[in-house]
């Protein structure tokens, strides 16, 4: 009965979504008596999808094998956490989560948005409903999560072992909150195009929503990167895999949007561009969802691929993105041009930020789709790897970092070049000194990491410069947010450069008792013994790592064999020290009592994710600051 109740809730939610669309569009066209029901309908819709999602979680937790999806992805011997998280470790469940977040985001707009002009808000909620209907149809007609299986099997097939990790409970929900949260920006843009209401007030209303989605996206990407790093056992933290790119592209667009919306809010500039970015950001989320779910690109992350569903998603893509861009083409001519600004000004700096972020987005998009385009043109299959992405996006990213040091020190409208030079001098000097120091300390360092380290030193100083001579207690929270987020970029960049330049890697076939030096550590291979848990058995190595004469650190990397479904994975064992991480993996038996060991010393690699966390915290502070300030403005009465 639970499954039927879930399906019924989903159908009711879809019907309410249709009602929301009809009522909101009628209200926009002038039938104001319908306006009053839009808000309650949006909220009820969200409650019903959330209910459907909660029921699916319940089915997974109690392992109801008469439901097809549960039988295919769940297993009664799994720990509670993985039965719970397995709900979204598959295609249908993750799409239901997608739709739930879409509904909840719409309800949040209906409940909390008070700054937006009423007609634009109604048009926005209509936009949210348009997106919702398509994805409800997708769920109900093409990927019903509640389909029954008769007769029910005795045991479920289990969850992909790579996904049997606490990361699954955390990474997909945050990433999806970011992905789908961007739908709000998209709907805002649609609403503004419909009512031709693009201006500072609109931008101030949209900004917190963009910020919120962007924060979740940042957390999701950072967490996903760390998860891939320790779970895959390859020692890398970013692989330029299509699925990773699919999450990076919306982030790049949202980051650009975050900065352009500030220009629109503060100086009433970049009107058309901001609308465009709002459309592009969520479009990238949808393209990403399509790429991941349809499996048209080869990816090591393709967990829940089903090409049959690709066609449906592609039609939705055409309708929504094509429709939004057509509306943009038809309406943007009637949006008044915003105000102009000088070449040396905060606005110009932010335009530079936007151009560079868009260029990087273009590079990632082209690189991700290039194999497909070449195949369409010539019939040739190929793969574009890190050599392309690093060489093409790396220099632009470094240019962006340099600009990031300068931008926040610029004044709005116009600034004096000479005065500016004096303001950025300390950071420029720090960067130059770092450039020299790094080359002296590591003469063989490659160009990009070298520049990366120098720029991160410069940016670290430049990003705290906006706090200079300010009363720190009276500095607005959103300035703190900017400072911490930019500082986070510097920290993350330093980690990336250190990891790519100074990592020490040892791949050895070691006998028990042998000692291998890795970076500052002496690692002794003390033994191997079998071990097991509820759903796997493993060979576990014992490694004793010593730094100088210090206490031995014991590490237990495992080669695990799962039996539902039968798969082998390697569990890394990582020791985090102040100066970096010791990363160990045990591989296959190499014969003659030898075992393959892969050992890495990765100096300062943790800075990568620490920086990511700082970026998200900066975003959260900015959001808090903006919402607080917004509260102080008089509330517009809801008619």
């Amino acid at each position, binding site marked *: 009965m639970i499954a039927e109740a879930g399906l019924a809730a989903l159908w009711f939610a879809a019907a309410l979504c249709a009602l929301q669309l009809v009522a909101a569009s009628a209200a926009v066209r002038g039938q104001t008596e319908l306006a009053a029901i839009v808000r309650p309908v949006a909220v009820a819709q969200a409650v019903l999808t959330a209910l459907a999602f909660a029921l699916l979680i319940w089915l997974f937790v109690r392992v109801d094998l008469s439901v097809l999806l549960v039988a295919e992805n769940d297993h009664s011997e799994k720990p509670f956490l993985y039965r719970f998280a397995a709900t979204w470790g598959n295609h249908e469940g993750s799409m239901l989560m997608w739709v739930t977040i879409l509904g909840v985001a719409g309800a949040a707009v209906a409940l909390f948005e008070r700054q937006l002009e009423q007609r634009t808000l109604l048009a926005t909620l209509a936009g949210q409903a348009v997106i919702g209907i398509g994805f409800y149809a997708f769920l109900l007609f093409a990927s019903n999560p509640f389909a029954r299986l008769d007769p029910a099997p005795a045991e479920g097939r289990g969850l992909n072992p790579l996904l049997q990790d606490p990361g699954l409970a955390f990474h997909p929900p945050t990433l999806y909150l970011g992905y789908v949260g961007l739908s709000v920006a998209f709907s805002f843009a649609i609403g503004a195009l419909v009512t031709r209401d693009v201006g500072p007030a609109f931008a101030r209303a949209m900004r917190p929503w963009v910020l919120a989605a962007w924060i979740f996206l940042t957390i999701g990407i950072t967490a996903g990167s760390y998860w891939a790093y320790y779970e895959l056992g390859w020692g890398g933290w970013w692989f330029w895999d299509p699925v990773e790119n699919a999450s990076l592209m919306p982030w790049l667009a949202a980051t650009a949007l975050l900065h352009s919306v500030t220009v629109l809010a503060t100086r009433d500039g970049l009107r058309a561009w901001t609308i465009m970015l709002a459309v592009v950001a969520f479009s990238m989320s949808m393209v990403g969802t399509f790429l991941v779910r349809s499996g048209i690109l080869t990816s090591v992350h393709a967990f829940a691929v089903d090409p049959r569903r690709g066609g449906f998603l592609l039609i939705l893509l055409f309708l929504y993105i094509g429709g939004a861009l057509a509306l943009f083409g038809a309406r943007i*001519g009637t949006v008044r041009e915003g105000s102009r600004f000088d070449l040396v000004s905060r606005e110009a700096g932010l335009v530079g930020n936007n151009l560079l972020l868009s260029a990087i987005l273009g590079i990632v998009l082209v690189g991700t789709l290039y194999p497909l385009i*070449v195949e369409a043109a010539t019939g040739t*299959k190929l793969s574009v790897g890190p050599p392309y992405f690093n060489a093409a996006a790396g220099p632009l990213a470094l240019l962006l970092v340099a600009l990031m040091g300068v931008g926040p020190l610029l004044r709005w409208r116009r600034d004096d070049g000479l005065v500016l030079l004096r303001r950025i001098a300390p950071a420029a000097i720090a960067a130059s000194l770092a450039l020299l120091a790094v080359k002296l300390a590591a003469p063989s360092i490659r160009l990009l990491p070298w520049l990366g380290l120098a720029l991160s030193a410069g940016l670290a100083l430049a990003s705290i410069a906006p706090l200079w001579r300010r009363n720190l207690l009276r500095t607005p929270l959103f300035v703190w947010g900017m400072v911490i987020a930019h500082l986070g970029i510097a920290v993350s960049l330093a980690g990336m450069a250190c990891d790519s330049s100074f990592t020490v890697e040892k791949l050895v076939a070691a006998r028990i008792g042998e000692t291998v030096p890795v970076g500052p550590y002496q690692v002794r291979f003390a033994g191997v013994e079998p071990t097991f848990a509820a759903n796997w058995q493993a060979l576990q190595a014992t490694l004793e790592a010593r730094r100088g004469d210090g206490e031995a650190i014991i590490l237990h990397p495992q080669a695990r064999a799962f039996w539902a479904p039968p798969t082998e994975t390697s569990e890394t064992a990582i020791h985090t020290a102040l100066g970096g991480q010791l990363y160990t993996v045990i*591989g296959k038996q190499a014969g003659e009592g030898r075992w393959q060991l892969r050992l890495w010393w990765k100096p300062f690699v943790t800075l990568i994710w620490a920086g990511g966390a700082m970026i998200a915290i900066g975003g959260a502070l900015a959001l808090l600051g903006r919402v607080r300030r917004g509260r102080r403005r008089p509330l517009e009465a809801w008619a």
Partner: protein
Amino acid sequence: MNDRVKWVPLVLFILLGAALTYGLAKPNDTNITSKMIGASVPSFTLPPATKTLPGLASADLANGKPHLVNIFASWCVPCIAEAPQLKAIADAGVPVVGIAVRDRPEALARFLGRNGNPFQAIGADDASQVQMAFGSSGVPESFVVDGKGRILQQTIGPINPPDVAGVIATVKAAR
């Protein structure tokens, strides 16, 4: 705003959508007729790409035995998917040799350690010169070469499980 410029995003998206539609609708055929079939392999000498295996020269491919030449790279994702099939082909007695494109020894060692090593020799093609001379535009690609160094078959993209028997049969027939 200029009247034409505002439609540019829509046009770009339609092009993108067309590529995606093609990607979804395309037949899953990886064996195409190549102009290289019947031609001799280009003459080349490549240094070893790893410490453990010898390098590769065109002379090694004209030693009377047929070979499978696999052009690959450790940074290439489809190459990981292809690894089990190469292993199966090598286990069937086919000499498999590799050309590693724009790779680094340590990355390659890691790739072989993780995905298995079907190769008897791997040449390092650091500037893609030999890859291009083979008429190959991406990784992975595989060539069946007979004992005189003539190309008999070209597989573009990964060798998928259904292709394995065909590759082995072509090599056996060339003996």
